[in-house]
């Protein structure tokens, strides 16, 4: 009996912890009613760069370290609160993800940054949550070795709503 209970606990722990990567979180909301999801490929970023020639190499390095960017937007008031709750559980109250910083924006928006390290110490997942009250946006970045300093370069080189908050990383 003890063995069965132990097995159940093991299976439950595995299932609960399953949606840990940013891609898995994105897949949970993709196509769900009340949510808009946007997936931008690495290639699109390569083309979108709007940086000075001297910064081009740095920007391309920043692009190469990510596998693309995924965005989930909840604009439906009924969904915003449950979405924020999910984000709180998934990232803020989770030992797998570490909070990087929290900001109170000028217009009352709340901005949170989280990251997840791989066993080798490299940052594999980076999460930006922008809560504007009536809208909640989650930006998910996945890569092999995300350099936080280079992430700022991504924001400098593109003009995507929400992503400009990456410039605030300290």
């Amino acid at each position: 009996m003890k063995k069965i209970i132990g097995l159940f606990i093991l299976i439950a722990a595995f299932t609960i912890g399953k949606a840990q990567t940013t891609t898995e979180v994105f897949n949970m909301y993709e196509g769900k009613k009340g949510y808009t999801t946007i997936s931008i490929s690495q290639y699109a970023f390569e083309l979108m760069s709007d940086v000075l020639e001297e910064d081009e190499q740095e920007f391309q390095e920043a692009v190469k370290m990510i596998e693309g960017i995924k965005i989930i937007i909840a604009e439906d008031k009924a969904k915003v609160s449950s979405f924020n709750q999910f984000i709180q559980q998934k990232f803020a109250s989770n030992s797998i993800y570490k909070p990087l910083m929290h900001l109170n924006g000028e217009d009352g928006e709340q901005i949170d940054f989280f990251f997840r390290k791989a066993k080798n110490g490299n940052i594999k997942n980076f999460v930006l949550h922008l809560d504007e009250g009536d809208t909640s946006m989650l930006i998910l970045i996945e890569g092999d070795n995300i350099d936080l300093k280079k992430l700022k370069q991504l924001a400098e080189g593109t003009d995507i709503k929400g992503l400009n908050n990456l410039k605030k990383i300290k």
Partner: protein
Amino acid sequence: MKQFITFCLLVFSMTAFSQTGKEIFKRYQAKKEIKGVAVSGFMIRTAAKLSGDVSKEDMQLLKKIKKIRVLHDESNGTFLEDLKKELTILSKKEIYRDMAQIKEDGAVITVYAHPKGKKSEKGIDEFIFLIKDRGDQIAALVQGDFSVNNMKKLLKQVNN
């Protein structure tokens, strides 16, 4: 006879590798259930001017368009799925490139791009938009000469 077989194989291989957006769209347009329309860049700009509701910036973007081909299927067939499978294969070969996918209120928009010949040119000569909105299945091929700046404007509009 051998020469004839070789010739047939050559023609077949050429057909199999005809992978421009125009050729792909023409192939699908030949199907009974699919309606197709092609509009020249000039027509698009004329229509935009007549509407009087286009900014200078948007008109600059429209000037880059040579032709738009649109395919539409209301028969609930697998046309869009088939086209997507084909583009996924071409994306793996880096002939077409995945750009973005947007899902909202049951509608799905997938964007592919065909890079210009030379890598150093850093531009796009074809965009393919696959739009599935409930029963409607639409594919649009936008041919032109798009620079990085044009694409940024386009993506910014999609993002906003």
